[in-house]
């Protein structure tokens, strides 16, 4: 049994040990109190490693290309951000860079920093602050919206030229799902208990 207060309505619950994959919900406001996960550590690590591979492909390979007669213009994920920087629109460039490039990377590296030591049963410094940071950045990871932006841009430019999606777009699209699977495999309650472990 452990006591937990609902983070959305503050009602106190006493929760018995739960079977894997069970979800505890608040009896008053129906908020998810927590989800118990089976093999949380292995699954999170597997998805995170897959995500990192896709990330490297998404950043380094051609993203979109535009073809109009003899003119062929190839861009990478970072091209637009770089051009916004050059145009002097730095806050905007920073925002796009953070939400679509840096924060997804921080999420994956954060997961590795927490879950590799848990898997190996060793302790690392700053694990708790890292896991706290990991939880705080989550709403600011917006790759799926960028993907919709690509779709809109293709329709917008479709009459002017041919848009050719590159390998990186496919990797980027897959990364959205893989990162979501990684995040969904995280059993926060278990992580906090293990990080606290013994002390």
């Amino acid at each position: 049994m452990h006591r937990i207060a609902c983070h959305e309505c503050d009602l106190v619950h006493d929760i018995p040990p739960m079977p894997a994959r069970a979800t505890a919900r608040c009896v008053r406001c129906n908020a998810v109190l927590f989800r118990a996960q089976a093999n949380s550590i292995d699954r999170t690590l597997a998805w995170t490693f897959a995500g990192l591979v896709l990330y490297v492909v998404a950043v380094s390979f051609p993203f979109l290309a535009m073809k109009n007669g003899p003119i062929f213009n190839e861009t990478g994920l970072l091209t637009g951000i770089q051009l916004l920087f050059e145009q002097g629109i730095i806050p905007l460039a920073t925002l796009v860079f953070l939400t679509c490039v840096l924060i997804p990377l921080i999420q994956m590296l954060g997961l590795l920093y927490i879950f590799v030591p848990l898997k190996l049963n060793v302790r690392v410094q700053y694990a708790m602050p890292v896991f706290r940071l990991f939880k705080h950045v989550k709403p600011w990871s917006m790759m799926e919206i960028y993907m919709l932006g690509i779709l809109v841009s293709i329709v917008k430019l479709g009459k002017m030229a041919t848009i050719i999606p590159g390998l990186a777009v496919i990797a980027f699209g897959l990364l959205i799902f893989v990162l979501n699977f990684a995040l969904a495999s995280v059993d926060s309650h278990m992580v906090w208990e293990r990080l606290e472990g013994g002390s």
Partner: protein
Amino acid sequence: MKPARTSALRLGLVSCSACHLLSRKPQALDHGITYCPRCGEELHQRKPNSIARTWALVIAAMVFYIPANVLPMTITSAVGTVSADTIMSGVIYFMQHGSWEIALVIFTASVFVPFLKFIILIYLLLAVQFKLVKQPKDLTRLYRFTEAIGRWSMLDIYVVTILVALVKLGFLADIEAGPAALYFALVVVTTMVAAESFDPRLIWDVVGEKHE
């Protein structure tokens, strides 16, 4: 699951916002900052200055919303002609060119979602301030809804970034981000932070007080 049927506040407990550890409220909490005994996060029984901060951010976002819609979002120069497009003229362009689905997507994400967020957040703030909570469950649902939809307003910012990258020098046309893009980014960020500063537990506090 046997609920205690009381709020942590009334039991003199405080729940950590990061690790959800429930601990006895330290004496020092009323006078200064105290930290979670497990993870080190700052402890608060309710988000600090929730109502005032949310109001300030909502009002700021509403102010940014005006230039975001009035000023040009993109400036396109093609063979000697320069045209500036606002969000609405972009929507109208798509409607006239038969892509009404895209027009609808952009209109929803850029114009309607921020507007809806203003209305819902102001409604929640007034309900809590004037203690007019009849259906706390519905209000909580509304709050979750605003939290979930806000991020989609980033769409047009991304479209501008992608267009700038694809259509650049050497091409027939050149697209640059207009001043509205910056205001638009400010609208998205301030409304997201506003939703985050609002504490949904305040809704339930109103109901709890009434039953006393």
